[in-house]
């Protein structure tokens, strides 16, 4: 093996420090530059050169650069992870109170009737746990799918977010009539937080649609096409997924289970509170949109 080939092999090995995406796209090119920079007759990379290559690779792995056009997607995915976190809190609280549901209600000042207590049987508890696990899984799945740019999730997420919105009403009913576990402790906080995460993601989807067309002209054709071509489909599903996750999370929340047990008429109870919350949520979504758009213009 010639010195040249040895040196090249050593550099190739150093390039393993870089993210796969970068190696795939720029590996050959960077290797050529490394070889051009190396003084003649070298068989192995100099220490400083090697340290610089490694530092660059670590930097890219620690702080991956996100294309401008994909930044809203990234934000949407963050919302999804936030939704997963809230759902996890929901599950943890449920698991904590499930052991002695009667004592828990007594602490809160409610006395369960025999009929109500009998509803907390093994089946109900299992359903409660599973329906808390499902949204966590969905949030994570959606975040992952959106991060990878899957397009199918879009319609589904939006639909699910719609369902979640409808279902949110269940979180505002008077606790006494509800056969739920967790919401008695936090009121509608957790379902509302979950819903907001979904709303944030959907808001980002709409921002994306508004922002992208104006980002097109002026920008250089080659690199923009390259970036948006890959990232536009990437963005939409991200939000979709969030929405689905949010919807299912709310749907599967204990409040929702309880809700399904109650007669439909009971739903009308909290409509005043619901409209206030929905109004607040719309405001939040609009604010997020403004911030995102402002950043892009800046």
């Amino acid at each position, binding site marked *: 093996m010639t010195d040249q080939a040895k040196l090249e092999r050593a550099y190739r090995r150093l390039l393993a420090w870089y993210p796969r995406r970068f190696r795939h796209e720029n590996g050959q090119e960077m290797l050529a530059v*490394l070889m051009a920079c190396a003084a003649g007759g070298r068989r192995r990379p100099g220490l400083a050169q090697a340290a*610089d290559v490694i530092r*660059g690779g670590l930097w890219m792995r620690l702080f991956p650069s996100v294309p401008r056009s994909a930044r809203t997607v990234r934000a949407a995915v963050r919302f999804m992870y936030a939704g997963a976190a809230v759902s996890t809190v929901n599950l943890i609280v449920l698991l904590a109170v499930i052991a002695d549901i009667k004592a828990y209600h007594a602490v809160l000042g409610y006395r369960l009737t025999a009929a109500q207590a009998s509803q907390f049987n093994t089946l109900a508890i299992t359903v409660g746990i599973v329906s808390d696990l499902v949204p966590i899984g969905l949030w994570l799945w959606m975040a992952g799918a959106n991060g990878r740019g899957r397009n199918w999730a879009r319609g589904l997420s939006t639909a699910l977010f719609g369902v979640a919105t409808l279902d949110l009403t269940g979180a505002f009913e008077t606790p006494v009539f509800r056969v739920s576990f967790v919401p008695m402790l936090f009121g509608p906080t957790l379902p509302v937080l979950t819903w907001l995460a979904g709303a944030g993601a959907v808001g980002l989807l709409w921002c994306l649609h508004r922002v992208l067309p104006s980002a097109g002209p002026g920008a250089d054709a080659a690199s923009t096409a390259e970036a948006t071509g890959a990232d536009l489909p990437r963005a939409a599903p991200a939000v979709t997924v969030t929405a689905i996750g949010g919807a299912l999370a709310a749907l599967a929340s204990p409040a929702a289970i309880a809700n399904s047990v109650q007669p439909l008429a009971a739903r009308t109870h909290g409509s005043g509170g619901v409209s206030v919350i929905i109004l607040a949520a719309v405001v939040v979504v609009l604010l997020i949109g403004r911030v995102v758009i402002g950043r892009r213009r800046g």
Partner: protein
Amino acid sequence: MAMRAMQEATFLILTALADGSQHGYGIITDVQQISGGRVRLRPGTLYTALDRLRADELIGVDREEVVDGRLRRYYRLTPAGSGRLADEAARLQAHASAALTRLDLAGGTAT
């Protein structure tokens, strides 16, 4: 929105691309020349910066060539990149002239 000051390496890379597209090694030699031999970019530093600049859409790929069996990618400034470089150059110029003016007033050390 307030912009952070640009790192020197970034500033020099954008300057190297200001009057035409260049490939990676060309940028290194050009930056060395612009800086009077003071700044010699290492490949790791260069490609970290290029990666970030492409993501920020300040530079784009102009064309690709294969030379001696190796891919050579030429980069160029985008309109956003030109604007950003112009802003940064104006900012540095304002600072530099402020410094020189004050030194002048203080006793004419900067002639």
